[in-house]
């Protein structure tokens, strides 16, 4: 069983992967490093959960993949956003913002 990082809210992993890929196509390891850097080491993802997510997103039509050479001359699968994936990222980001704002309001009210 892939152990999901417990500190990652359920369902947000997909959104983070989409966000990571918004700039440029990347391979699996690249995505994992980028996520760790951007979260300043808060999110450490193991290969298992990442690849399960890639598979899921690809099947949902949000990602596409392509085998390409890396800068080190190695072959790797590069993932990139589809048009649908880009739309989904936008809508999820908006939704996330709304939710966070709402939760913040509730927490501040008490």
């Amino acid at each position, binding site marked *: 069983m892939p152990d999901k990082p417990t500190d990652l809210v359920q369902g947000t992993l997909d959104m983070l992967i989409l966000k990571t890929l918004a700039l440029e196509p990347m391979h699996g*390891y690249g995505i994992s490093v980028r996520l760790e850097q951007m979260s300043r080491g808060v999110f450490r993802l193991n290969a*298992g959960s990442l*690849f399960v997510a890639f*598979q899921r997103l690809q*099947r949902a039509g949000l990602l596409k993949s392509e085998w390409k050479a890396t800068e080190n001359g*190695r072959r790797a699968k590069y993932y990139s956003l589809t048009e649908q994936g880009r739309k989904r990222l936008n809508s999820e980001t908006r939704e996330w913002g709304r939710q966070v704002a709402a939760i913040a309001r509730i927490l501040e009210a008490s």
Partner: protein
Amino acid sequence: MSLLRNLASGLRSLFRKKQADRELTEELSGFLEMAAEEKIKQGMSREDARRAVRLEQGNFEVTREAVRSATWESFVDSFWQDLRYATRQLRGSPLFTAAAILSLALGIGANTAIFQLIDAVRLRTLPVKNPQEIAKVAIDHRGGASGDFSTRYPDLTYAMWDQIRKQQQGFSEVFAWGPNVFNTAPGGEVHKVQGLWVSGEFFETLGVTPILGRLLGPEDDQPGCGSPLAVISYSFWQREYGGERSVLERTLLINRQPFRIIGVAPSDFTGVEVGRYFDVAVPLCSEPLVNGESSQWKSRAGWWLSVMGRLKPGWSVERASAQLRAISPGLFEASLPPEFNPSNAKHFLQYKLGAFPADSGLSDLRQSYQMPLCLLLGLAGLVLLIASANLANLMLARASTREKEIGVRLALGAGRGRLIRQLLAESLLLALLGAALGAILARNLSQVLVASLSTQNDPLFVDLSADWRMLGFTMGLAVLTCILFGLAPALRTASVNPGVVLKEGTRGTTAGRSRFGLRRVLVVSQIALSLTLLVGALLFARSLNNLAGLDAGFRQNGILTAYIDFTPLNIPKDARIAFANDLLQRVRAIPGVESAALATIVPISGDGIGHDILWGQTGEPEGDAPVADFNIISQGYFDTLQTKILSGRDFNDHDTNGSPNAAIVNEAFAKQFAKGMNPVGMIFRVRTLQTTRLYEIIGLVRNTKYFDLREDFQPIVYTAKAQYATPGTDAQIIIRSRAGLVGLTSAIKNTAEAVNPNMDISFSSLRTTIEEGLLRDRLMARLSGFFAVLAVVLAVIGLYGVMSYMVARRRNEIAIRMALGAEPASIIRLVMRESGTLLLAGLVIGTALALAGGQAATAMLFGLKPTDPFTLGAALLSLSLVAALASLLPANRASRNDPMKALRDE
């Protein structure tokens, strides 16, 4: 959309599994190597970097498996693997596999066959356009009615149909129809075909389209009829005309009247009656032509039609019913038979019409076979339960030999869920194979069943083509049995504790009684259920025996009936009796004929005549007059059937038109009307629709059955054929003879032809008629007997299996006992005590089940109660005997064990 993409991509990776696997492996190892390189860059050694990555990311194989198993196709894939593994396992033990599949196939096959019949006669809708709109029009709770009844559905008279057609509003179209048997031979021995009278709206209303020519329409059904037309069924077209298109110019003789064939109905249309078929359909208006003098068409007291219709859009059956009810008073007023006496008329005018759903057609089979079929389905269900229990037992036995293997796999990290799935796959495979074989068996079995219920005089046609209901039923059974026999053993096996199992010696420890307990429970329930089935089978067998051996009051063997129709000879009314008598004398003169007589009614043939009896010379009864059954006979009838004349005399030559009306009555009549006194010399009146006549009783005879062997003896009046006022144009001769049937029938044919070759003749044997009346009882006795034998065999195998297993498990204990000086006899006692306990528990539960379940069969038993102690005793005794034999074998084996060898094996 995304579901589709998921499916497509899943299928792609399923079919290109190797490639998909390779890609995943490459991608994952690439990931790990990149992670390691990163660490090397930070200054770690290659070795340390690799170890660090493994620690962070976990086992490579496990990760790969986790990614792979996150998709749906991996589930399919592993299921496929499980099935292949199961196939290998089953192939490894062919004997077990064959036994399992066969017992399941028998169980599932029996259930499916009976369900198929229930489906065909009960559940299917008519093969016509929008069957749910079809409803039947009939008199609501008609009860007793007066008049002449013919056809299987004598719901209404022609006059009523005429009124319904004019006055009803709830149906867009209505039609009338009635089944009949037609004779298509030009003369001599009759050739019977299944006929339908149909009104002009019949085919149109049902939405049937011809496959050749055209069908009958309203213009073909006009009073007078002109030159009559006929439509034939597809099967008749194939059978009699070889499917030739030239059939349309042909003429068909129906009771000697020529009918022009105008079309052929489609192959799936067999009429509106389930379980029957038709060969020829002719318009109602041709009935007077065919039936001549005995026509029902004009007679207002002739009940011979059934009416159905297609509801208008927006009209429910209830609404149509209410409208019919509202028009009833006027309708029955207008169709009142003029010959009815006031009491009949009063009853008649109170009738109310109603509409009834008829989307699944009409069927008299449904009434007579619904209960037997449901009961049989219950019995077959019990057999399947026993088969499942048996199989569960075998699976448990197999599982116990695989405990070690399972223990090793668990210890190596196999998931319990996956193990259970794997074990269930084996059960599922068995269940599916059993169901497939069972479906094939069912096909044959249901055909045999229908064939065994179909007789020459009453041919059946049941559409047995497979449909989704049957398919669903069979699949449902397969899954159900799989769960029944597979789940418990699978759960049990997968729950072993690897530590314990692996530590256990190969033999020696008795692996916990609880493990063994389930098998005991299974055997006890098998014995209980098979006892129930055995009791049921014995009840039906004894009931059939009671019926077959019953003294019906007349001789049943060696009696032949010859029915001679001399309508074509146009003999005037006053010469008919003499003509019939002449035929009788000629038949009596045939060598080998011991005795012969004329009779209008042959007992147990289903035909009957009933009239009101008014006791004494004068006086009207209060309320309804009592009714007696009638038969119009010639001298010698009682001699022919060997019914004893208890007092008085038989009819003789002096009983003629000129002398007072004479009657012979039976004991039941004397008991009811003469209060048990000798009735000879007493007077009574017979009230028919037209007249009331005075009769003097001249003889008393023994009771005989009239309609049915099951009935209580009813009062019967015999009157003299010679004194009959309205003789018909036929003669029914009952013949007792020593000669063989074949020689006798040809001799009678020759005799009749010598008189006039234009007469129609048909024959039937009394014994055959009676046996055909017992079809249902015979079916129950045979099938329940078959089920019971199957059940007992399975239960005994189960008991034998458990006892052998127990003996094998306790081999060491028994060996020690013997080494310490136990006699072989005491070992046998030990084993027998064990099996006796199981048997006793099974028999006690089974007796309770049989007593409770027997209530369902009460109505179908004759001459005994479901709690019949003798039957129960016989079942208990026979089951105990075979069970004792089955456990004696392993007991004997145990007692002959060489204790030294057993202990050395340890």
